[in-house]
């Protein structure tokens, strides 16, 4: 008899599902038949280190931190792409070269923008 090579994966998925589901089901049965739920206004309140929560959680954040995001993209994420590009440079077709130039152009635009905003000045 030659079992299906995917049978192993089926067994794996079944065990992976049963492993968390059985304790959860046992906990549910226990709660249902033994432990009475005791909800309350305080108990169900939002947890904020014991302090009463004030206001809504849906607040708007200031967008002034976008400049940090731009600089991070230019000086960190761009390098991750540039290093493999530089290593494989001689073997690249023209299409890939143009694609990376477009990518560079988009980020250089951001650099010019950030420079113009004075982000590259040392704060004194």
């Amino acid at each position, binding site marked *: 008899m030659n079992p299906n090579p995917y049978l192993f994966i089926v067994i794996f998925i079944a065990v992976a599902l049963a492993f968390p589901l059985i304790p959860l089901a046992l906990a549910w049965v226990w709660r249902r038949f033994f432990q*009475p739920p005791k909800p*309350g206004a305080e108990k169900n*309140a939002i947890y904020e280190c*014991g*302090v009463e929560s004030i206001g809504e959680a849906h607040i708007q954040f200031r967008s002034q931190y976008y400049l940090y995001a731009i600089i991070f993209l230019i000086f960190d994420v761009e390098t991750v792409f540039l290093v493999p590009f530089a290593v494989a440079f001689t073997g690249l077709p023209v299409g890939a070269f143009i694609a990376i130039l477009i990518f560079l152009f988009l980020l250089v635009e951001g650099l010019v923008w950030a420079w113009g905003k004075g982000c590259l000045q040392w704060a004194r």
Partner: protein
Amino acid sequence: MGEGQIDEALRTELQRQGVWVTSMQELYNWGRKNSIWPLQFGLACCAIEMIATAASRYDIARFGGEIFRPSPRQADLMIVAGTVTKKMAPQIVRLYNQMADPKYVISMGACAISGGPFKQGYNVLKGIDRYIPVDVYIPGCPPRPEALLHAFMELQRKIDEQKLTGADKAAHLDPEEPSEFPVPAFGKHDLEPPANPDVFQPPELKRV
């Protein structure tokens, strides 16, 4: 022989034959007492001793209590470690209320028991047991980690003896027993109410 109990002689006889017999209550309490997750918060110098208890030298993990939870939703045990100021008391009661049943409280150190050396202070609560029920008290200023471990073992003993059924079953299994207590608020001069009458009655003074 009461419910949930096994004849000891029969049990040892069976154990000799390689059969392990237990009851639902023992299994339940065994699981609970060996995985008490404390709430991660400290109030004063007792908290330093509590941290030492959790660290490698004293290692509360040997008793299953190393998982300090930063949320009351996941905690079983509140270790009131330090001086409870009147500013902090409402927060502590609220945190206790937000813990899920079953929940236990260790009152650690002289301050949490009675106010300790700061008892005469205008802003010090004279014992956290005025507002929430305390299971184990540890004296000391501050108590050494060994004392906290002892309190932990006492609590384990207490959990082990809790009943699943019957009239004297554990409080968290009784739907009538409250799970949360009134949170004190700041009044004109003091916290109001000054104590929770359900858990605390001031001792009667008798002049002789």
